[in-house]
């Protein structure tokens, strides 16, 4: 069952990603991207990371993709399609993709032993009892103790982005 769900979500992720770059219509691309993100959320769920699952959906689908669609609807796409396109650089793209792919493959073979999927305790899975004691608490603990500095740096970065977008959008403050 677990393997089946994994492959189902993997198909969603990859199929969505391929459709995102091949569809002509921008809205169709956005929808394919949503499908892909749903697949990623499903993979989180399979890894017993239900907090990440919910946050992935709330933030990416509910926030970012809604804004994407909002912008796509406002922009006149027929005009934009006639402009000079920047997607003809397939040679550079191919090189980049190969290098990144080789890197990922190398690290995966090197650290094959370290890569472990979350295991469902067999007894708990049989009785159907809730397994994980608290994914939310675990993330909060790690985020606010071990990784506090990166967390704060990231929030400052976001603040800079917010202030910057306000400055750029508003002519007179």
């Amino acid at each position, binding site marked *: 069952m677990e393997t089946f769900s994994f492959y189902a979500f993997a198909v969603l992720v990859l199929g969505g990603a391929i459709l995102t770059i091949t569809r002509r*219509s921008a*809205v*169709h691309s956005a*929808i394919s991207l*949503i499908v892909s993100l749903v697949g990623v959320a499903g993979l989180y769920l399979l890894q017993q990371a*239900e*907090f990440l*699952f*919910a*946050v992935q*959906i*709330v933030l990416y*689908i*509910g*926030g970012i*993709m*809604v*804004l994407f*669609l*909002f912008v796509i*609807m*406002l922009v006149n796409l027929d005009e934009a399609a006639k402009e000079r396109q920047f997607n003809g650089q397939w040679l550079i793209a191919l090189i980049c993709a190969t290098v990144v792919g080789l890197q990922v493959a190398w690290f995966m073979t090197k650290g094959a032993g370290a890569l472990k999927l979350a295991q469902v305790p067999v007894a708990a899975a049989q*009785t*159907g009892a*809730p397994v*994980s004691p*608290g*994914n*939310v608490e675990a993330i909060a603990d790690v985020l606010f103790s071990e990784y506090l500095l990166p967390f704060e740096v990231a929030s400052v970065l976001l603040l800079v982005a917010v202030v910057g977008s306000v400055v750029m959008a508003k002519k007179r403050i």
Partner: protein
Amino acid sequence: METVFNHPLFLPVSMIVVIIAVFPLLAGYIVLIERKVLADFQVRLGPMRVGPHGLLQPIADALKLLLKEDIIPADSDKGIFWFAPVISTFTALTAFAVIPFSEKLAVADVNVGVLVIMAMSAVGILGIILGGWSSNSHYPLLGALRSAAQLVSYEVALSFALISGLMVAGTLSMQGIVKAQQDRHIWFIFENYGFMIVPFVVYLISATAETNRAPFDLPEAESELVAGFHTEYSGFRWALYFLAEYANIFVVSSVAVTLFWGGWLRPFPAVAWLEMPLNVGLPVLIFLGSGASSLILVKKLKDPVQQKTLVGAAFLCMGVAVPFLIPAVNAAIIGLFWFLFKVAVFVYIMIWFRGTFPRFRYDQLMNIGWKIMIPIGMASVVVNALLGMLRAS
């Protein structure tokens, strides 16, 4: 047979079947109540023809919607047009999965329950946007744009209100939130020295905006946008949007009830002597009383068939009071009664809003969202944290 009843999946699966089967009917009757209550506010009668006092109107409406021709505009994006209402309905009904109807009655108790509801309402926006866009017509597109902006803005305020509530509860699980109130013998609306009323008001206002209800119904403002994002929809697809809207109303009311008003707990859950009057007396009084008072109306009806229908409905209503008199059954269903009773109060309040407030202008809507609701929500998170620490120390 025993093994079937004791299977861990038996209760969830039967709950799912019951919810999906019953909710469309319930939504139809919420619409009837809405029409009747609004009619009463405006000193008119509302639906009166189908059944006594319009009691069978929802069934007639549902039949009409099912049989109506399904029109798809020629220039629309067919696939998305076909799929958009499905997204709305699917997400709205999925959110029911984590609602705790009573201590035992719930499809699932997930430990990120509130987040699941937030996630589902976030995905539900897509149904509206895509439906509006794929119609390929001006009014739906404008409605969809408004709705995207409105829902994204008010979701922030909604989250801040929820965070305040969750900080008091200390858990994200819907069942856990009610159990925390049970342990502390207090509904969270009265917690933190009564300050929780502030996040509750923020929640109520943002939830009204999230469900596209008047006075925030700009996405479907009929006086300017015909019918907003669902202008081009008809028949069954339109009914799906409608079902989703009422399911969302039910869900946001349930979250308010669970987080702030004690879920399935009765008022004063720790005071033992109130057990009899509140848990037995009140439901019996409500059902017997409403049944008996509708018997008075029978004489005023002229048509004998309508008279018989109303008598039947009245006795049905009185019959519901009987299970509450049997102690064993009462213990099993009283949680459900309190939960649905509180949700009904919230649904009534939302109808009341619709009957009372005129629709906001678009700039007013955005000002309320960004300049009033979000700052108040943020401030109430901070104040709540301080009060919570003060209370705990």
